């Protein structure tokens, strides 16, 4: 005979199976896999280097009763503003460096925001540093690139005469 049945939903089955799964769980996971391979890669490269070649030189500058500036571009072109005028240009130069490293790599250039030069007790500030290449350089395939740095010299009113010197730092790092 066919007994009248209540609905045999899968819920009932799920309750029962809860006690059985633990015994069989070991079957799962060992065979139902899909896999793919990937090639992990990296490259150990030449460290980046920065070599000093020559100094930034503003040449001879004439101060006056009013302040002014002298700009030396990365191409070593010189100009003045305000009460400052230009003297003899002998020795005027942008700073020069050579960057070395892994061929074709790019690198970031960090310039000082300001620095000072002094002659005895007297000093002036140098700021608005510029470089060529600007901000980011790219090494040649052979792994080198020249780097030129210019800046702006701020000459005070009635700046005392003298030979002023100072130092500044340039930093390069791989991008």
């Amino acid at each position, binding site marked *: 005979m*066919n007994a009248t049945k209540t609905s045999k939903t899968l819920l*009932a089955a799920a309750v029962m199976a809860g006690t059985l799964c633990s015994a069989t769980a070991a079957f799962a996971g060992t065979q139902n896999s899909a896999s*793919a*391979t990937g090639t*992990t890669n990296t490259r150990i490269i030449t460290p980046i280097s920065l070599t000093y070649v020559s100094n930034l030189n503003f040449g001879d500058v004439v101060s006056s009763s009013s302040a002014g500036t002298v700009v030396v571009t990365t191409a070593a072109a010189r100009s003045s503003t305000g009460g400052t005028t230009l003297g003899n240009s002998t020795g005027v130069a942008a700073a020069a460096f050579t960057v070395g490293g892994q061929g074709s790599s790019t690198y970031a250039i960090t310039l000082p925001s300001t620095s000072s030069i002094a002659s005895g007790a007297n000093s002036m500030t140098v700021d608005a540093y510029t470089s060529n290449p600007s901000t980011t350089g790219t090494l040649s395939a052979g792994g080198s690139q020249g780097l030129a740095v210019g800046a702006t010299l701020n000459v005070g009113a009635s700046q005392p005469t003298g030979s002023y010197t100072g130092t500044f730092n340039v930093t390069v790092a791989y991008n």
Partner: protein
Amino acid sequence: MTALACINPTTSREAKAALLVPIVTPVVDPLDVFGSSFMIAASLTVTQTQALNFGTVAAPGSGIGNLAINPNGGARTYDTANSAIAADAFSFAIFTVTGGQGTKTYTVTLPASATVGGCTVTFSQWSAGGDVFSGGNDSFNVGGNVAIPAAATAGNYTLANAGAVNVDQASGSRTGTDDLTAVHLKITKPLALTKTANPSFGDVVAGGTAGTVLLTTAGARTSTGGVTLGNGTGVSAGTFSLTGEPSTAYAVTVSPTTLSLTGPGTAMTVDTWVLSPTSPGVLPAVPPATLLVGGTLHVNANQTQGSYTGILTVSANYQ
């Protein structure tokens, strides 16, 4: 049974007594008095109390996979090396039989076979202590085997009625039947994993001391120790595309745990793999899922310059 109650009105105290009248089962079954030639059909009541549920299984990559549920103990096995069962609910069917005689044996006839989800199911039966009534009652389990071809179509299948389960005591003196209903099988799409991008740590500068490069699943790098980073061109987390059954749990493993990268110098290692999404995960409603793999590269002191590579394997399993 008759119960008598006596109340004594003079004391207001109550006393109750029960009179038990035992009903004794005849030692000889009345049906047997007449012998088989006078057989009167009596009924066994057969009732299915639990469905046969094969649970979820991935179709095999090729050939036929046989998925079996043992009616004795309920273990589920799958014989294919190409796909496997999910760790979900499954069960054998249970039938109860009442109205049998004493401790007589009985026989069970199962449906020869059935088809669910395009797969052929055969049935098997088991009862604790053999097919013997105890006080006229017993129960037995029905398991089975489902043969799943590689071409099986993914789906959630339930066979409403697989056919009659007949129970027969003493060559037909008492019989009963019930249909084996609700045979359930879910076939899933096989998992498939493809690589879309290699894990790449990019250019790295070794130093005089060892160090590491951490590559996140977002493809970002950081370095520690004597190691600094070179150009990030081509830096990428490993990227894999996983397809399979929608909204289904999976787990991912990356091997080897420690991968050796070989190149012109001393081998380097990559370990501490990280995954996004983390494992286990659930396939989206519309696969694929994108799996991202990062890790930690260990660079030796003064590592020789050059390119280093190693092959990792990413595996995904249904949960």
